[in-house]
């Protein structure tokens, strides 16, 4: 493994929020599980904090977020269910990171009104706001609901409608 130049590390640290998991691990979109694992090992050899104890503190600080993003990328790509979600997200231009924490493993049937108590509550509040044509509150509540359940389609749709409504009724 080629040692990576400090300037490259710092450049990558700045870019890390913009590149997707495949690019980060230097993988093709059709990479096999085995290739994903190998890429994880190779990248870890370069970016894991243990491998960089001898670097300057500036480099170490640059490397920390990269290392964490590498494990995140691996966690998503090695899991077929997560990978499928991620691929879909990439294809629809939905951002380069996937939230790991959706309790997807233990949630049984998705509830359109929300799978978490908070999601449901904020969704309910938003519906109330919409009835009163209070779009800005509805938007706030829906955004909040989405923080608990990122990717909830019902919430997203409603948010989109609310934003459109807001644009057409700018006074409310």
């Amino acid at each position: 493994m080629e040692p990576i130049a400090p300037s490259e590390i710092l450049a990558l640290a700045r870019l890390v929020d913009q590149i997707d998991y495949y690019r980060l691990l230097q993988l093709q979109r059709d990479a096999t599980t085995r290739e994903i694992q190998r890429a994880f090992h190779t990248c870890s050899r370069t970016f894991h904090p243990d491998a960089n104890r001898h670097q300057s503190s500036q480099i170490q600080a640059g490397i920390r977020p990269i290392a964490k993003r590498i494990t995140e990328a691996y966690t998503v790509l090695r899991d077929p269910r997560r990978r499928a979600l991620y691929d879909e997200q990439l294809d629809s231009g939905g951002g380069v990171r996937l939230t790991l924490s959706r309790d997807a493993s233990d949630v049984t049937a998705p509830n359109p009104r929300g799978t978490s108590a908070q999601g449901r509550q904020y969704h309910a509040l938003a519906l109330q706001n919409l009835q009163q044509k209070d779009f800005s509150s509805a938007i706030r509540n829906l955004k909040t609901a989405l923080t608990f359940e990122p990717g909830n389609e019902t919430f997203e749709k409603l948010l989109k409608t609310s934003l459109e409504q807001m644009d057409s009724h700018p006074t409310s």
Partner: protein
Amino acid sequence: MAEVAIGIDLGTSNSSVAHASEGNVEVFTNIYGETITASVVAFEANGDIEVGNAARANIIRDPANTVYSAKRLIGRYFFSEEVKKARAFYGYSIEEAENHGIRIRIRDEEFSLPEVSAMVLRELKAIAETRLGTPVSKAVITVPAYFNDNQRQATVDAGRIAGLEVLRIVNEPTAAALAYGFGKGLQQRVAVYDLGGGTFDFSILEIGDDVFEVLSTAGDTFLGGDDFDDRLIDLLADEFHATHGIDLRHDRQSLEMLKVASEDAKKGLSEDPEVEIQLLDIAEGPSGPLSIERRLGHDEFARLVGDLVQRTFKVCDEALQQAGIVASDLDGVVLVGGPTRLPLIREAVTTYFQQEPKTDIDPDLVVAMGAAIHADSLVDPQSSCQLLDVTPLSLRIGVAGGLAETLIERNTPVPIEQTRTFTTFRDHQESVAIRIFQGESHEASENALLGEFEFAGFEKALRGEVEIDVTFEIDADGIVNVTARDRTTHGEVSKRITLSSGLTKSEIESIVARGDAERLTQATLPPVEENIEREPASPQALPEADFLELLPADEELREGDTTAEMPIYRANLEEIEPHSVQLDPDDESETDWE
């Protein structure tokens, strides 16, 4: 010579220290020529502190002033099950400290658990310094894979109190795998079956070109060889009770004698198929002293502990399932821990895994050796070894209704971070508080509470307008860090509240300044200079921020608290807000708006 960093296996009953350089690993012997030092601290009446195998004799002679099994208590709260049990059975006094913490009372002194463990660490450091002939200030310390964040933090604190910079906390089974596979160019999938005195850990690793990737880990912090002893103690005591009408468990002295005899008998069964148990004058009967004399065979003992052994395989099932493999996919099974010397364990392991376990490395030393190899790799830039570990427990956040939602699932590789955006739910709300847990239950109270975090200092605004990005990080040591940022101002708004199981930075400093090191008996101190220079605390493990004072919780919250690991705290702040996520938990009351 390059920088020196040692590896320490800080065990419940026994500890070891080793050093690796240029591919050679040496486990150091103490003044008795033994590679294993008892994790026992004896406080003598004259103020001397003795650690190790000599101290062990004091458990019977002076139980009130001899601390053993500190690892079972470190990082735990006063009201946890483990502490309750220890208070009932241990000879020394365990008291409640502020904020549900614990202290050991020895005569008129009080010690925190990290302080006690630091005494053991200091002894091991001294052994290494004697053997190396040079001061040592850096170490890798191992912990059970299943240790939670509180226990890991407390172990780091212990290291710091002992004057050691803890380079890394490594999981015991991971260290064992390293000792097994390092430098051999292996391409293998191995399992590590680690049955210690008080804990069982099981990890599955993929080894490839000196990259050690943990695929999954599982464990039980309440299962170990000591539980085998307890079974035998009960058997002997029950039989004695049936014959003589005396319960030996009610007398501290008799109980200690039973404990020693039971452990000896168990260990004997590692050597011989049958052992003789003899306890003369264990109690005073109406017509003179009474004794126990009995034979114990392999089969009888196997029946006695059969369910405990089977419990280890439940844990193995879980880890295999998490790794997505079956037992026959494994290229090897590495044994760690004293009880794995028992033929009954080896037989059961062989049956379960359908293969003979690897027994070429000493199961008592393999962890310290792995720790030393890793320590060396951290100070040697040429080293080629790379550990990739996972978090053993799911990281959760408390939400309304007493529930806890997953942020980072167990067996996720570390280091890793996840960010969640929080908002206020009242106009002009000044602070947001969240609770973090580790565990596998949706019920918050069934998980271990790591801490409550209160975020303040963001700009006040209308409900829902404030957006605070809270980042949850698990570092390569398995230690959890939480920080928060105001999305609009990008200002750091984090304030960490550490709970009482941990020590604050200033507490650690004052302990270090107190200099208990001088009290360690001379025989065990090395003839080299003490390393005076104290490494500054690594910034991540203990936050620089002010600690918010914590108050005990309101009783109402406490009522629902059925499990041990669930302390309730409340931040002592001007305005105490429920955390932002605490809305009405009653789903059914939800009106249907559609």
